[in-house]
């Protein structure tokens, strides 16, 4: 069984240089157009919903109510509705805190005025209050924020962002949920309901 080994014919390809000039042209033009069309600013969104009126509920169910009124720059009014029938954790700590910072009582609710010298101080103080409330109401997510007509859009966004989540420079806080488990979070009241400020509302 002799195998004949055929001599393989070597095929000679024509020698030539690869011309990549057209490729370079296309690439350069493509990059130029892509650079023109690309936006390097990073956009994101801050979400909120409006306060809608409706039929009052017939069910007598205690509801958590937290309202912020922004009438002037760097000033806020904070209202906390009646809390005596609400589920809460660390109730004694909350009552002590409300007694120090707020005026009111558990049946009628609490209120306080907040003012700061600068934007960062305002955000810090507002978030301190919200952290204290969130620790006692870890299952609540809604906050109503009412803005006066003269409040600028940037300030409005600052407030909405501040009530949703802790500022990036702050560390998260530990809260105990209704099941008694500890968890670390940065989230405050992420469901922001926007409203219009009216005196005495």
């Amino acid at each position, binding site marked *: 069984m002799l195998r004949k080994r055929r001599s393989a014919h070597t095929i000679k390809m024509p020698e030539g240089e690869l011309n990549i000039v057209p490729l370079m042209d296309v690439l350069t033009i493509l990059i130029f157009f892509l650079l023109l069309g690309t936006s390097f600013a990073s*956009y994101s969104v*801050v979400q909120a919903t409006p306060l809608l009126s409706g039929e009052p509920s017939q069910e007598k169910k205690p509801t958590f109510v937290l309202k912020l009124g922004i009438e002037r720059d760097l000033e806020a009014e904070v209202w906390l509705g009646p809390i005596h029938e609400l589920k809460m954790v660390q109730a004694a700590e909350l009552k002590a805190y409300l007694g120090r910072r707020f005026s009111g009582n558990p049946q009628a609710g609490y209120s306080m005025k907040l003012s700061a010298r600068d934007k960062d101080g305002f955000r810090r103080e507002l978030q301190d209050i919200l952290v204290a409330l969130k620790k006692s109401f870890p299952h609540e997510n809604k906050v109503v924020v009412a803005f006066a007509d003269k409040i*600028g859009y940037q300030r409005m966004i600052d407030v909405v*962002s501040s009530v949703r989540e802790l500022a990036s420079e702050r560390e998260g806080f530990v809260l105990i949920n209704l099941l008694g488990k500890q968890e670390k979070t940065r989230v405050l009241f992420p469901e922001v309901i926007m409203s219009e400020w009216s005196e005495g509302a």
Partner: protein
Amino acid sequence: MGLKRKNKPRVHLEEVPLNITALLDMMTVLLFFLIQSFMVSSMALTPPAGVRLPTSSKVAEPEETVVVALSAKELRGDNKLLTTLAEGKFKPYEIAPDHRTIIPLKEFLDKEQKKRLAVYKGAGDLSILPPGKLLIQADKEIPFGILKYVLHTATVTGYSDYQFVVVSESGDPSRAPASPARK
């Protein structure tokens, strides 16, 4: 006076082939990077002229939906001019009798809402659909007293999920750290 021009001796350089491999590598990588960034941010969120967006440190990805842009001079819907403002206020004849609704914006959003609902035609009760999302690009100096007309009109047309477009604080050049104060 006459300057004598000396004949410089001619230097014959060796012919060296230009190596463009590194250049090609770099351009290809740049091309991939740009195409990727194009695909990620497919939505055109660049605000129209006259709209300086506010800044925020919170990051949430925008979703593709109807865009309304409000500056001190004009109101746009999906980049089409809807109306102009006079001295930073809406013209009285473009406000509905309820003193809240902007008529041109309502007409625009009604059309968009019809398009949105047409998708769900025959799917049952449309009233249980979640409210429409509306991307709002407003100038950071606009007072709430003007913006509230837009928000109200959006709500009455079914767009009550507001998505305020902001620039991430890290990407805003105007928030660069200030130079240290001189003593």
